[in-house]
């Protein structure tokens, strides 16, 4: 009998038939029917209609049938929460079963049924199972705590499961320990400050003992957990290292990589002159090399990690160049990674071998790989000076092959070699010129033109060569056009007599016939320079160029440190911090390598976790201060209030500085004022003025970029640091580049709040990094909180009333706004424009009471009571915000 037949049926009345079969009296028929249901579920058919019938099959002593029903339950319980309750009794009963396998099965499955109502019933059985006499049940229950925490964290804390879980770290069974560690590590990730794992020398000792005894997977959990510990001093660090090193001989690559992670991290604390330090370094190389004989997918993971390790500690693998030689049958992803590492390891000692290899690779089939190999030869030349000559001759050989993309790639890298070693290899120019016609890629054409221009005085027919490019000037890409313009000007400055005509031609092409502002501007600059002061032109255009750097692709040191702490994980594969690809609060915390310190007490044995709260809940004072700094300027003012005296600004005044248009403004200030965020002095010529606004429900960051430098700016990009409300650019920065000198443009960047969250000081602070072709610039600015008020913040009256009562008094604050000359209606209208909604109004003893609600993008609601004393310029505000109630929502916001 085979099971594949269950996949075949696709008749119409299928569901009815199944229903009948499920309710059959015969056990076998029932089981068959459930199998069919599961098969349908697998291929994506909706069989949720059979829920009650399947659940009816649950009470059986046939374990196979039971497991199938459980599988069904896990899939559909969420869509039928009420019916799922029907299953609870069976679960509770099964948790008492004499057979430990059934007890474990029940508690395992119950945790997978993510229905809130069920979780309540889960607590008692789980508590029992955590203390079960059978280790198999305990290890299953340990994971179940993590499951429950994922559904209802508060419940887990209230029920004291975390403490029970902590106790399990001292369990006698190694697998229970391992699972408890895994569960605690996961829970701790969402509570970075909780000190849940409470790692101290005693608990570390327990973990190290369990490490020797548990399964390979358990060893991974434990090692990954150990990596978060910060040893107190170098002695402790060494003793942990000594107990971890045997893991390097484990057959499981993940165990090896996790052990490498622990060692790489703890090594940092050891004094470099210690004998043990050297021993450890030596011990690390062989297992890393062995990883390369694993299956290709694991090789790939290993290579990505080795790439990091080589950057951090090149000495470990410096003698192992050969193992990174590419094999003909390696998958392409392995080949490309090996190539990267080869270049990193290239040194004077091994360069001959490396070059011979690279030359071989340059004749392979895969175009990407060949290009990378050719580029690698160029990088070797730049990295190892002694080899430059050999590299150049290798490149010339490759050019002789006439394979189009090889030639083009070679010319691009030769240009870089010329820049690194000026006046050394110009003899090869003639060979390069022969290949002029075959170049069809912009980068290669631009490189060739650069070479011709730079060495115009040595190329007899430089003018002819450049002229030949000029014919199709308008069809070229901008890169080539710019290069051609510069090259011809260089040529003119070097050989003024013969090339006057040519230079005029290119200048007119660039300035008159081109609609590319960049090109035009450059053309005009040259033109003016040449016509006013040829000597100055010479100094500018033919100025000595700065040398190019050797290693352009090294990972930035702080990122590298963080990635070293993530060895073996996805972050190390992507070479990105977890926050770049993990949603929500998980993995947001940055990890750091402990630093060796002479007074080692300062770490105090605290876990490596850093202090990044999961979701920022503004503290009382913060929220008030900021809310009251409300900037209400965007809405048009309908208030006909007479202009009043300028109001004093204070930290605590309602709708603070922002209210000034409300209070004092005659509707004159309609756009928020731009502030200078990045002065040109700090931005290497880039000046940024900016402001924020909320338009049609979208938060916009509006910036005015001005190029005050002498060169064009291109390749703009923007990034935000983690911030209180998770603001992040909703798209790339759209700057119509290039930005020519003295050009000013306005850009508007839509934002969303899907980014990582970290509490800032002050709360509305935003740290921004803007990048262009010149450098990366950092600045910080503050956004008005009102920008975060969402359009649907209007509460129902009843809800408002109920919520107001529910919010504890501690969450209330009061303050006054002075000198407000609006009547309550005008104020209400005005505030509405900023998504502050008036729910109700009543008049008591000559005071107008306005009840208002607003909701922040992260789900926090703020309720206010605004008391307006008619005729008095003073507003009193009572403000209650709901964070205690709403905290749970922001964590899952965006659903």
């Amino acid at each position, binding site marked *: 009998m085979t*099971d*594949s037949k269950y996949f075949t049926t696709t008749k119409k009345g299928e569901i009815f038939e199944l229903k009948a079969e499920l309710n059959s009296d015969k056990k076998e028929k029932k089981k068959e029917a459930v199998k069919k249901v*599961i*098969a349908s579920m*697998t*291929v*994506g*058919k909706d069989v949720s209609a059979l829920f009650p019938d399947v659940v009816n099959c649950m009470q059986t*002593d046939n374990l*196979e049938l039971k*497991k*199938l029903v459980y*599988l069904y339950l896990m899939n559909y319980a969420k869509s039928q929460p009420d019916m799922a309750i029907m299953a609870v009794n069976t679960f509770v009963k099964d948790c008492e079963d004499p*057979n*430990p*396998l059934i007890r474990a099965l029940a508690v395992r499955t119950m945790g997978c049924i*993510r229905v809130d109502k069920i979780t309540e019933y889960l607590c008692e059985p789980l508590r029992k199972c955590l203390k079960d006499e*059978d280790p*198999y*049940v305990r*290890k*299953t229950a340990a*994971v*179940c705590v993590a499951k429950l925490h994922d559904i209802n964290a508060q419940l887990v804390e209230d029920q004291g499961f975390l403490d029970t879980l902590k106790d399990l770290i001292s369990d006698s069974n*190694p697998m229970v320990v391992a699972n408890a560690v*895994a569960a605690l590590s996961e829970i701790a990730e969402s509570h970075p400050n909780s000190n849940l794992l409470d790692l101290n020398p005693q608990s570390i000792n327990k973990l190290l003992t369990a490490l020797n005894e*548990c*399964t*390979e*997977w358990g060893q*991974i*959990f434990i090692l990954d957990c150990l990596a978060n510990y910060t040893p107190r001093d170098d002695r402790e660090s060494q003793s942990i290292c000594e107990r971890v090193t045997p893991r390097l*001989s*484990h*057959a*499981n*690559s*993940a165990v090896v990589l*996790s052990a490498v992670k622990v060692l790489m991290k703890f090594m940092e604390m050891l004094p470099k002159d210690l004998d043990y330090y050297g021993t450890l370094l030596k011990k690390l190389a*062989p297992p890393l*090399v*062995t990883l390369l004989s694993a*299956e290709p*997918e694991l090789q790939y993971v290993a290579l990505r990690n080795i790439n990091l390790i080589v950057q951090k500690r090149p000495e470990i693998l410096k003698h192992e160049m*050969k193992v990174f*030689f590419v094999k*003909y049958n390696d998958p392409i*992803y392995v080949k490309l990674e090996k190539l990267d590492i080869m270049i990193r390891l290239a040194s004077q000692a091994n360069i001959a071998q490396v070059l*011979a290899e690279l030359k071989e690779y340059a*004749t392979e089939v895969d175009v990407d790989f060949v290009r990378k190999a050719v580029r690698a030869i160029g990088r070797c030349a730049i990295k190892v000076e002694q080899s430059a000559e050999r590299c150049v001759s290798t490149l010339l050989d490759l050019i002789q092959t*006439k*394979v189009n993309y090889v030639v083009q790639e070679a010319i691009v890298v030769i240009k870089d070699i010329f820049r690194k070693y000026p006046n050394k290899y110009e003899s090869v120019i003639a060979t390069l010129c022969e290949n002029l016609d075959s170049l069809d890629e912009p980068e290669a054409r631009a490189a060739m033109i650069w070479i011709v221009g730079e060495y115009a005085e040595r190329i007899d027919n430089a003018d002819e060569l450049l002229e030949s490019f000029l014919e199709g000037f308008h069809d070229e890409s901008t890169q080539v056009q710019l290069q051609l313009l510069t090259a011809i000007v260089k040529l003119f400055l070097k050989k003024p007599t013969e090339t006057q005509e040519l230079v005029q031609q290119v200048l007119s092409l660039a300035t008159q016939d081109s609609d590319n502002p960049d090109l035009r501007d450059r053309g005009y600059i040259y033109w003016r320079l040449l016509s006013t002061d040829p000597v100055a032109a010479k100094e500018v255009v033919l100025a000595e160029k700065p040398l190019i750097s050797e290693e352009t692709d090294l990972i930035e040191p702080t990122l590298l440190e963080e990635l070293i702490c993530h060895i073996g*994980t*996805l*972050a190390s*594969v*992507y070479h990105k911090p977890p926050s770049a*690809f*993990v*949603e929500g609060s998980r993995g947001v915390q940055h990890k750091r390598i402990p630093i060796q310190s002479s007074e080692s007490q300062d770490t105090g044995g605290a876990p490596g976790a850093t202090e990044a709260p999961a979701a920022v809940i503004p503290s009382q004072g913060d929220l008030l201060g900021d809310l009251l700094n409300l900037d209400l300027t965007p809405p048009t003012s309908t208030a006909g209030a007479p202009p009043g005296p300028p109001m004093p600004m204070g930290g605590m005044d309602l709708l603070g500085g922002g209210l000034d248009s409300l209070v004092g403004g005659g509707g004159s200030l309609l756009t928020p004022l731009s502030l200078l965020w990045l002065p040109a002095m700090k931005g290497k010529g880039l000046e940024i003025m900016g402001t924020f606004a909320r338009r049609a429900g979208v938060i916009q960051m509006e910036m005015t970029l001005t190029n005050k430098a002498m060169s064009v700016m291109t390749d703009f990009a923007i990034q935000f640091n983690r911030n209180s409300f998770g603001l992040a650019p909703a798209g790339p920065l759209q700057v119509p580049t290039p930005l020519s000198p003295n050009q000013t443009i306005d850009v508007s960047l839509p934002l969303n709040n899907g980014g990582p969250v970290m509490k800032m000081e002050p709360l509305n602070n935003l740290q921004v990094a803007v990048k262009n072709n010149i450098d990366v610039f950092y600045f910080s600015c503050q956004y008005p909180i009102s920008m975060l008020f969402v359009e649907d913040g209007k509460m129902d009256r009843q809800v408002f009333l109920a919520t107001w009562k529910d919010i504890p008094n501690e969450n209330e604050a009061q303050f006054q706004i002075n000198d407000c000359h609006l009547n309550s209606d005008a104020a209400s209208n005005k505030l509405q424009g900023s998504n502050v909604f008036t729910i109700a109004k009543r008049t008591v003893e000559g005071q107008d009471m306005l009840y208002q609600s607003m909701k922040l993008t992260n789900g926090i609601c703020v309720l206010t009571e605004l008391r307006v004393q008619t005729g008095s310029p003073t507003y009193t505000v009572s403000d209650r915000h709901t964070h205690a109630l709403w905290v749970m929502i922001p964590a899952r916001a965006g659903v």
Partner: protein
Amino acid sequence: MIGGLFIYNHKGEVLISRVYRDDIGYVQWEGSIRSSSSYLSPPSPPRRNAVDAFRVNVIHARQQVRSPVTNIARTSFFHVKRSNIWLAAVTKQNVNAAMVFEFLYKMCDVMSAYFGKISEENIKNNFVLIYELLDEILDFGYPQNSETGALKTFITQQGIKGQTKEEQSQITSQVTGQIGWRREGIKYRRNELFLDVLESVNLLMSPQGQVLSAHVSGRVVMKSYLSGMPECKFGMNDKIVIDKAGKGGTTDEAVKSGKQSIAIDDCTFHQCVRLSKFDSERSISFIPPDGEYELMRYRTTKDIILPFRVIPLVREVGRTKLEVKVVIKSNFKPSLLAQKIEVRIPTPLNTSGVQVICMKGKAKYKASENAIVWKIKRMAGMKESQISAEIELLPTNDKKKWARPPISMNFEVPFAPSGLKVRYLKVFESKLNYSDHDVIKWVRYIGRSGIYETRC
């Protein structure tokens, strides 16, 4: 941790889908993908999006797979392929990537141990079993004990009704215990063990005969049929151990064998081996699993015996003809015989005809593989053989030169090219009445070609 696990056939149809975590359901994907056929089918539960995203972006991708890890809309997909079956693990977290791949391989091993080859048919035939296994070895995305020896005691597809209480607790203590790979109470009438030293020798040689890289990756595979919980100790001619013994000057045997000792670059062990003991004393002691398993893997790079030397000679005669001559020399004791020898000489894509003459064996031009395949059944040590071929080429205007892939070789020899020798394997079982002498032991050495290439 792992959020879900899917198995697809080559068409991208889902055969198995097991979701462990809710977060992987909602994969938002780019506009271009929206035209896929899944949009025409009736609405399905949201988590199918992840399933579809992988199919569209990886299985059906036009380009060759550029990475075994794919990130689509902040969801990471790990995949491995076995014949034309895709296994994909999905996650939204920063998981231990090495662990996920190790788990996927393990999953394949477990499935093979249960029902043989991993094929669409076998998976469909055993889908209930697979779900049961997935439930057991992956809990909330955390891998659990996945040793087949242990699993087979309680995942049997037979139900566990008949078990006694003792049996049940034995199962649970085995699954969670320190020796999760072996159950108690094993009995054999004849205590016997087989050791296979399997080596694959890898070589990359330049046309001039210079060794560019050479290494041996070896495995010691053990089949044990031993009663009780035997304590084993394994010894080989490891240079470090022998030198240590030699220093003590205990026996002259150490000095004698010292010559033959080998330097092991690195080795890894099955989880049954006590790693801390190896680290401190370099002794290999363990309680073996029952049946067949891989005890250790090792790698050596020094003093490797290269069983064959390939000497290529390729001459281009004009633009339409190639002359190839390849000599192979065997380089081991004349009394030994190499088997299954195969030399693969690549030919250009524009080959129109080939004429071959070989002294020994059979040679054939295989147009579909773009190679001349020369097979020799047996060859003794210290012998030499030769093949010559004339390759006719079609004239092409393709400027690109022929890449000249290396000449590769396959063979099998009855010795260990690394020089590794098993010195002893001692078995102690104090509770049962058999001693080391009663155990029948077999040792066999097999050296195979790994990637054995000579550039031409």
